[in-house]
Structures are given as structure tokens and as C-alpha cells.
């Protein structure tokens, strides 16, 4: 099993490299994961997306797709790609301490 030192603790990661236990997540952990993803600072817009993802996951047990993020988080697709380069849904899920969205199977 892979691990990473985040927020001063050694935390287990899943096969995709996301946090294995989302209860270990906190804002400091989020900032440190973001840094490893090349995002130096989490702005209020980043947090809006991260919190939206966490609330959807809490309710539905899966994180939303990019299409749903665009529709419901109030951030358009272009901006999502600027905030979370390469894969907004995948990256935001990782930073939010959630598993990789299952939608992409």
C-alpha cells in the first residue's frame, strides 16, 4: 500500500494515489496535496469547488463529473481547468480527500 506524509502524519493512499480514508482529511492536508499537484495556493474559488465535491460525495457516495461541476458549482469549465489543470474532476477529488470519481469507467 502506498502512503504519503500529509499534515504531519503518514496516511494510506488507494491504488489511484488518493487518500484511502477520507476522515483523515483536513484543510492542511488539502493544501499539501494541492502543492504536490502543482497548485501553490488554494483560492476561495478552489475551496468552493472542493467543498461542493465533498458535499456531493457525502450525499451520493461518488464525486461529481466535470459536466456536473460546471452545471452546479457555479464555476465554468474553462475556469475549472485553470484552477485544477489537466483533470479538474480527478484533481479536485484528490485534493478534497475523495476517491477518483467513478463516473469515468
Amino acid at each position, binding site marked *: 500500500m502506498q502512503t504519503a506524509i500529509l499534515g504531519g502524519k503518514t496516511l494510506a493512499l488507494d491504488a*489511484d494515489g488518493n487518500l484511502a480514508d477520507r476522515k483523515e482529511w483536513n484543510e492542511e492536508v488539502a493544501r499539501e496535496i494541492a502543492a504536490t499537484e502543482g497548485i501553490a495556493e488554494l483560492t476561495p474559488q478552489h475551496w468552493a469547488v472542493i467543498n461542493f465535491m465533498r458535499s456531493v460525495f457525502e450525499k451520493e457516495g461518488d464525486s461529481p*463529473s*466535470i*459536466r456536473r461541476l460546471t*452545471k452546479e458549482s457555479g464555476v465554468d469549465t*474553462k475556469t475549472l481547468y485553470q484552477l485544477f*489543470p*489537466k483533470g479538474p474532476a*480527478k484533481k479536485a477529488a484528490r485534493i478534497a480527500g475523495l476517491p477518483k470519481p467513478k463516473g*469515468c469507467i
Partner: protein
Amino acid sequence: MRHMLILGGGTAGTIMANKLARALDERDWRITVVDGKEEHYYQPGFLFVPFDIYRMRDLVRPRRQYLPGRVRFILSSIDHIDAGKKKVVLANGEALRYDCLIIGTGADIHPEQTEGLLDEGWGRSKFDFYTPLGAERLARFLKTWQGGRLVLSIAEMPIKCPVAPLEFLFLADAYFTERGMRDKVDIHLVTPLSGAFTKPTSSRVLGEFLERKGISVTPDFGLARVDNDEKKLVAWDDSEVKYDLLVSIPTNMGDPAIARSGIGNELNFVPTNRQTLSAEGLEDVFVIGDATNLPASKAGSVAHFESEILFEKIMEHIEGRAPRAQFDGHANCFIESGYGKGMLIDFNYETEPLPGAFPLPGVGPFKLLGESAINHYGKLMFRWVYWNLLLRGVELPIANEMLMAGKQVV
């Protein structure tokens, strides 16, 4: 008399109609299937049409022929479902009341969802192979193509049969090699995924396969639009990929009737309970096949595994028995890899595709996540299995739950 109403007479709807026709007492239950199209296509065959391995006329049969005699078939488009009133309204306004509803309306491609994709050049330098028309047009085009840059682009996930794009690339490599023009064709995959496939082990193995065949990959590409003047794909982060020939897997969505019914998600897929296959929040409504939002592959094999569970669920529901059966997300796909060889993968919600032997541990005859000629014959045999066993809803020689025996944990 109670009424079992099945929407869509494709792979899943046909299997369910056959199973239920055998089990439900004719004195208690009427069974109806509604579908808007007379022809039933064997969709896995579409992959082979561009390369002249199958012709479209070899892949189509009359839909009615695969439904049992006691089932009423209505050839009509479905307008919407009114789950509150337990009725379905057809395009001509006729309403059908139901006691139990099965939604099996599948998924289809929606090129209009990507800016510039459907505009000039669609059917001339830009093609799909997920529809009968698209696959035939591409076959015609390839016969006289002189070569250049072939780009296969996946617009958005999820898609039907997520391995089909890779199979297309493997077959393209073999096709151009056999025609002595492989050196004139640059084959390239552009995908929103981080690698060749969705799950880590298979992504690595399939990625190595692509590399060996000289097929390059642009991962993490979020397709924003197609620029027709410069023949290029443009991503949301403004990166670009040029093409001469674009083979597109456009956004896959559930049927617009789902949207009109107000019961779908952002892609018109119906939120479905992953174990029981009942529609979330709707009474007496079940969902099967590509129409669900389940984190399982959109594949005929999945529809088959789901049908075994859904059949049990519906019988439990009707007979008021305690629930027992549960769906585990089982999928199992042959992957055509070119030159008369193929691969096989077997996985579920929790377990990713692993190497090994199938269905008999250590024996096979099929090889999991590895290449062999027998896997290729398995794929070709699947067409016969589809028409003669699968649609009829009879037992296949494969366990319904995914088994770990025979798999190597890596």
C-alpha cells in the same frame, strides 16, 4: 391483470423480456416492450465495419424476432415517464399504465455537445464508429485514404464499451500494416483519462501495448472544441492536437426521454441503486444496461450480468420475498488487439482487471489481460452467443459474480 412494461428492446430489454416471459404467469401478467426502431443491431460488431471485417448487413436482425410470442411489441418513440402516476406516454400521446417498469433505453452518442464537432467535415474528415451510419461512412473513407495523421478522440467519459477505442487503434495498426501503408499513417489517441484505460493495472498493460504498436497518446486532454479551419482539437487549457482524419467518440448520453421525464443526471443517465438496480426515489421502477448511472462499464456483458440480478430482484419484489440477490458490478470484455489476437478483462465495482486465466483458474482457455489467438476467437464467437444465447436470457457458461480464482494479484 398486472402490467410489466419494458422501455427499450435492445440488449437489456430483450434479455429481460425473455426471462420474465418464462417466469411470470400469463393469467396475472401482461408484458410489453416499447422501442422506437424496428432493427436490432449487434453493436459490438460496429468496431469491425470500418476495417471491412464485418458488413453492417451482417449485424442487424428484426427486433421482434428476439422477443417471445406472448410479449406485446410496440414500435413507437417514448415521450416521457410519469413515475408519479405510474404511466409512460408515447410520442403519439398514448399512455401506458404499469405496475412494474424496467428502463432499458441505453445510451447514444451526442456530437452536438462539442463545439465544432458536427459542423463542416462530419462524415468527410470527421467520423464516429458508434452508429451504423458512422461506421459505414468510415469504412468507405478508409478504402481510398492515402494516409496522414489519424487521431482517435474521446470527448468525455463515461462511454459505451470503454475498451472499444483501444481496439479500434489496434485494428487500425493491423489494417494499415496489411495494406503496406503503416509508415504513411501516424496513429494517435487523445483521451481525457490519465492513461490508456481507467483502472491502474490494465491502464499500464494496455499503455505498453499501444507503445509497442507505435501508437502515441495524449492523456488528460479535456476536449473543448474542434477547429475545422485548422483541423485541430483544442482543449480547455488551450493545448492543441492536429489531425487529418478524426475518429471521434463523442459524448455518450442517456435518451432525451429520460431528460423529459425529469429523472436523469447531467448526462441523462438514471440514478440507480448499485446493488438492487431500482431507480433511486421511484417506486416500482428498475433500470438496466447503459441507461443506469452505475460505476460499471456500459457493456452488453454487464447488461447480461445485471439481468440475472434484476430478474431475481423483480421476482422478490413481486412475490414479496426478502431481498437476497445483489449486483457486484461484474464486467467482462474481449479486447480485439489485431493480427488475429485478442485480450480479455474481467472486473467489478471493487476489483480492477488483473492478469490470469478465465473462466477456469489456471486453465483458461482465455487469457486475462494478455494477448492470445483464442481470445480473438472468443470475440468473434460472441456474435453467435449474442443472438443465440445472450438475448434469449439463458444461462451462459460464466459465473454471474466475479471470482478471484484464476486472477494474479499484482
